[in-house]
């Protein structure tokens, strides 16, 4: 199976779906002539023309709104936001229009649109560029929020998103674009809302998504040398949440650590912990631990940036804590 980068996997998904469905078009800042700020749309303008790969001015509220309108009249827009931090400017369009149009029109209108771009930590881009914003969108009924962590999931989930009848918030990561992994060529559709056990284990369940699967897997590898088998569950989608997979794992291991790059208050992780304690109370042998980013804006300083989000050591320590060892 070919090993490709996360950005190439996304590019494959876009190319394959655009070839399959002529209603799909891409719009965003620098997506066309420049081949994309992060090269996800590389070569697509050349291949599909300026009408299907549209460079927009720097005006998130405008082009996001335009995309939503286009989706309501039969097209399937892919709106690239250069980062989700900038999409806050278009928040009203996404959460008040895209998310609610089907509900408020009594089902007469729908909005098949994919908003995509990177979220989370960057490389010393400081606090306005380094925010993990999945909870902000997962909060609103009407939106699906996808957070792939591997190239394979990126391709399979983006293809699924492009076939959805409702708006999808597709959250990538600057730090993941160059990550490589095996990805099937051609048709690969991974249903939205299905978690995946990335590593089976029997002692502790570590629930994670997006970039946090890497410290989780690294910790699991280290802990295995000490005889601790960690089950790593990658949510892949944070709305809807695949709670049955999480609960099945917790019922097997009896202990749970939730790792997220986002801040602690009102986070997706808090919803997972809530469900675990409520649905699997009698299966818990220890309180659930949640690891989060430090509850401050992301610092610019490189050392401090490195201390901001949970690391493999943090995950390992939390695992030992729920096992009451170490």
């Amino acid at each position: 199976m070919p090993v490709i980068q996360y950005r190439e996997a996304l590019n494959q998904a876009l190319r394959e779906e655009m070839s399959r469905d002529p209603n799909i078009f891409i719009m965003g800042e620098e997506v066309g002539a420049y081949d994309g700020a992060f090269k996800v749309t590389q070569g697509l303008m050349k291949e599909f023309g300026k009408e299907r790969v549209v460079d927009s001015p720097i005006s998130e509220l405008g082009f996001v709104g335009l995309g939503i309108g286009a989706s309501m009249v039969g097209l399937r827009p892919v709106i690239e936001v250069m980062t989700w931090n900038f999409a806050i400017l278009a928040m009203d369009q996404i959460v008040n229009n895209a998310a609610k149009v089907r509900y408020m029109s009594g089902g007469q209108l729908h909005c098949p649109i994919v908003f995509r771009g990177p979220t989370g930590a960057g490389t010393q881009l400081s606090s306005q560029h380094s925010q993990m914003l999945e909870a902000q969108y997962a909060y609103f009924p009407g939106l699906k929020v996808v957070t792939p962590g591997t190239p394979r999931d990126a391709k399979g989930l983006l293809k699924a998103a492009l076939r959805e009848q409702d708006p999808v918030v597709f959250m990538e990561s600057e730090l993941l674009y160059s990550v490589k992994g095996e990805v099937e060529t051609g048709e690969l559709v991974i249903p939205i809302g299905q978690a995946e056990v990335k590593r089976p284990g029997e002692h502790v369940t570590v629930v994670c998504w997006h970039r946090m699967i890497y410290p989780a897997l690294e910790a699991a590898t280290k802990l295995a040398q000490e005889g601790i088998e960690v089950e790593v569950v990658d949510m892949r989608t944070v709305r809807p949440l695949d709670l049955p997979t999480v609960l099945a794992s917790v019922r097997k291991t009896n202990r749970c650590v939730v790792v997220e790059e986002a801040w602690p208050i009102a986070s997706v992780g808090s919803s997972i912990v809530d469900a675990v304690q409520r649905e699997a109370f009698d299966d818990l042998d220890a309180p659930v631990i949640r690891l989060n980013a430090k509850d401050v804006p992301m610092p610019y300083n490189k050392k401090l940036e490195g201390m901001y989000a949970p690391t493999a050591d943090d995950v390992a320590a939390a695992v030992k804590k729920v096992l009451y060892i170490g």
Partner: protein
Amino acid sequence: MAVSIAMPLLSPTMTEGTIARWNKKEGDAVKSGDALAEVETDKATLDVEAYDEGTLLKIVVPAGGKVAVGAPIAIVGKPGEDFAALLTAAPTAPAPAPAPAPAAPAPAPAAARGQTVQTPAAASPATRQVPPQPVKPLTAPTRMIQAAAPARPATNGFSEPAARVRSSPLARRMARDSGLELRGISGSGPGGRVVKRDVEELLARGGPAAPGVAPAMGDELIPLSNMRRVIAQRLVEAKRNVPHFYLTVEIDMERAMALRTELKEGGSGITVNDLIVRACALALVRVPQANRSFTEDGMLQHHASDVGVAVALEDGLITPVVRSAEQKTVSQISAEVKTLAERARNRKLLPEEYTGGSMAVSNLGMYGVDEFIAVINPPQSCILAVGAVAERPAAVAGKLEVRKRMSATLSCDHRAIDGATGAKLLAEIKALLEKPLALGF
């Protein structure tokens, strides 16, 4: 407004109390400070004092009745006042099958000294039903519950943990599924929480020994007294959680016994045990590294030699503590031990008289026991087990002599005391007893 008087918390390990006697009857006037009743706890019989004034409208728990800490025992108010709401709102039945205090934390030294200890619970004073810790005066004033506020079981975070077993939801489910009783089990999780591995271990051993075992024909199942339950619990915790190691020496008591005989002839009632307590107190001063208690927060260095003396009671055991024994003469120690032992036998000891401390002395010499090993009484970090003083052959300056000798075994908490430290302490005790004039009288 009528108020409900709750069963007070009179000792750190108390989960329920028995009304020994009512000093007032229904209809009697009650003044603040009046001793309303006497309550038997697991350790002592103490007075319940009134806080407010009024008339004793109702005795909820008659003499001989047993209720959980925090449960109402009486109603005080104005004559003719309707107090039905207080009765219906409050649970009056004895707590079902009182659980022992599984994780009864070793009282902090401050508490042992009767100082106020801050309660971590955030319960408002209006809803708190029991004092947070044993406080002075020991006849802890009973909190009143206003009739307007519905009485509820104590949930202020202090009395509740003492009344329930800390266990994980999974451990509880496993115990339920396999018909196990978690009461009396001390867990390996934080704060003694029973977790999965503890239940698995228990199941592997075939379940708990006693509960659920029907007595064979002719045998009799004697219900556990509160004291016996607490002793069982604390000893299991001590043996399970405190890593013991043991050091044994034989002490030549020839001179100590001669001195004692001389003192006795002079009318003094000093016992061998008094000499040993004094020797321990001075040895702790000479080896301060041994005068420490291990706590999760750090090593607690004691600056006084508080030496406990194990006293056997008819139905149990208690260890009153001689405070600052290094500053007391043997005669003072002797008098104090006599008083404490007497109070212990009458079950009148106050919690601050039997909690905390540096080390303890357990003496079974009077029963002719040659030597034995004692279990540490946390938070103390060592205990000296002494056997009988007996004439034994001993090599003295190359010759065999018959000498009065005594075996002493020091059990040490290895978390606080290392082998060499324990050995130094024991060596000092031996040296002091072998040259007893150094003990000072």
